[in-house]
């Protein structure tokens, strides 16, 4: 499957991927509205996080592991592996907010939703024409989606 691979050697730490992620997961699909209104109102937040260490930066999110620890830990069946697409899919309706996935994922790729007993996790922008918004927005091609 095609995954998103971050390259820390060319990441410039601009956080544009985070903004693109928020926009893609907003209702308005508008950056300014998503950031100024929806972030507070419905807690839309980025699945991607930029980490910095001095001059080095990297933008990380769910790796869609082949054998995900989050799926093993999920008590509600909200997290499952889709055998056809390879994605690690999250069903928000089933989630009870027990945070077992957050504990089990060694990649820190699962966050608590700021307002609800739900999680925030990368869905690879599966329903977005053109693929993941973070990859499309990255100005220095530090994020690539490809088969490896």
């Amino acid at each position: 499957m095609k995954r998103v691979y971050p390259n820390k050697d060319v990441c410039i730490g601009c956080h544009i991927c985070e903004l693109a992620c928020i926009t893609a997961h907003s209702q308005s699909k508008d950056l300014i509205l998503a950031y100024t209104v929806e972030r507070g109102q419905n807690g839309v937040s980025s699945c991607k996080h930029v980490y910095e260490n001095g001059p080095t930066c990297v933008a990380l999110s769910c790796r869609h592991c082949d054998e995900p620890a989050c799926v093993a830990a999920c008590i509600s069946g909200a997290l499952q592996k889709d055998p056809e697409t390879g994605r690690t899919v999250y069903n928000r309706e089933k989630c009870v907010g027990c945070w077992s996935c957050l504990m089990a994922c060694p990649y820190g790729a699962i966050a608590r939703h700021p307002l609800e007993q739900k999680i925030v996790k990368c869905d690879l922008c599966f329903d977005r024409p053109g693929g993941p918004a973070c990859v499309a927005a990255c100005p220095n091609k530090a994020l690539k989606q490809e088969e490896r």
Partner: protein
Amino acid sequence: MTYVIIGNGVASIGAIEGIRRHDPKGQIVIIGAEDTAAYGRPLISYLLAGKIGPERLALRGADYYAKNGVELKLGTSAAKVDTVQKTVTTDKGETIKYDRLLIATGGVPFVPPIPGVKGADIYSFTTLAHAQTLIELSSKIKRAVVIGGGLIGLKAAESLHDRGVSVTIVELAPRILSGGFDEKAGKLAANRLKKVGIEVNCGVTAKEIQRDQDGHVKGVLLTDGRFLETDVVVVAIGVVPHSALAKEAGIKVERGIIVDGKLMTSAKDVYAAGDVAQAIDMLSGEHRVVPIWPNAYNQGYASGRNMAGAKQPYMGGLPMNSISFYGLPTISVGTVNPPEGDKNFEIFAQLDEAKEIYRKLVFRDEKLVGYVLVGDIDKGGMYTAFIKFAMPLAGEAKDKLINAGPEVFLWPAELFDETWNPEPAQAAR
């Protein structure tokens, strides 16, 4: 190839997914004693609390078994396993031939021999049926005593309280959650429960359950002489491996069913997984029964792929629990209570009682081997990484972990690259 799986919990779901990863065609037959498809067992406390309805219990979609070519025999128990003829006989008299067998029968509630414990008004809390019974009961009773201050007991107490029942917890150990938590974490959780009106008694246990002339429970006499009047008693001391079937088949059983690195039992082509299995533990290297959810799925998955011939060993279990008490989230992973006075371990703990925030890190040989988080749990998984990947943490890296928390730049460069930006040849995982 016919795979027969005895038990229909999360280990069986793991097994189906492990088998299907490597064998899309073989026949899978599941024998399940309960009469529902696999459900999220820990969700029974959410159901009892009224937080979710029964429609949210199923672990997988309605078409899951059909899609995966699984034949379900529900409401059916395995009565006998013949490891020579390679057959399982059910309680309905059917004999099923297997090529590979998985015993994933889970655990059964442990009920200690307290005088008066046998009879009416005594309940367990480990199955959907138990939850349904307690839901019906909750409108008719006023008081409940829960024996056991572990995860099951506390969740039973919380859920019954949410149903309007006045609940008292009795725990033999000096603190609740003595297994996965330490004194400070246990106290923060206990305070939350006390604040909502659940009574928590530690350092005492039930000496006798007293009954009236009709045989109904009157109350519980405690070891410290107090008498707690109650309508029902929920016994939630823990679960013990449901291993009788394996024992009778001549399979090697200690505390649980002994399994090797591929989760095969002492009988050829018979595997075991989940709460019934005594499998290898990642940190100690010993074989232990650690009845927790993620281990059950992972063991199921690893046994599944090995039954299907993949020859990939089980990586070992890691104790972990994530659980919230009235909105106070807690996580406990790995070795969190090292033997007292053992100089091989180093502990760093910070408590902010007013904010209900606690963090404890346990190191051994310059590696993180355990942690507890209460309140602020957001970096949980990032700590788990250091344990799971046994990352060396000497000098500055350890100081940073202690002072600033876990972050990905503390990882060894090679692991970082393999994980996040691998060469195409290494990317298969």
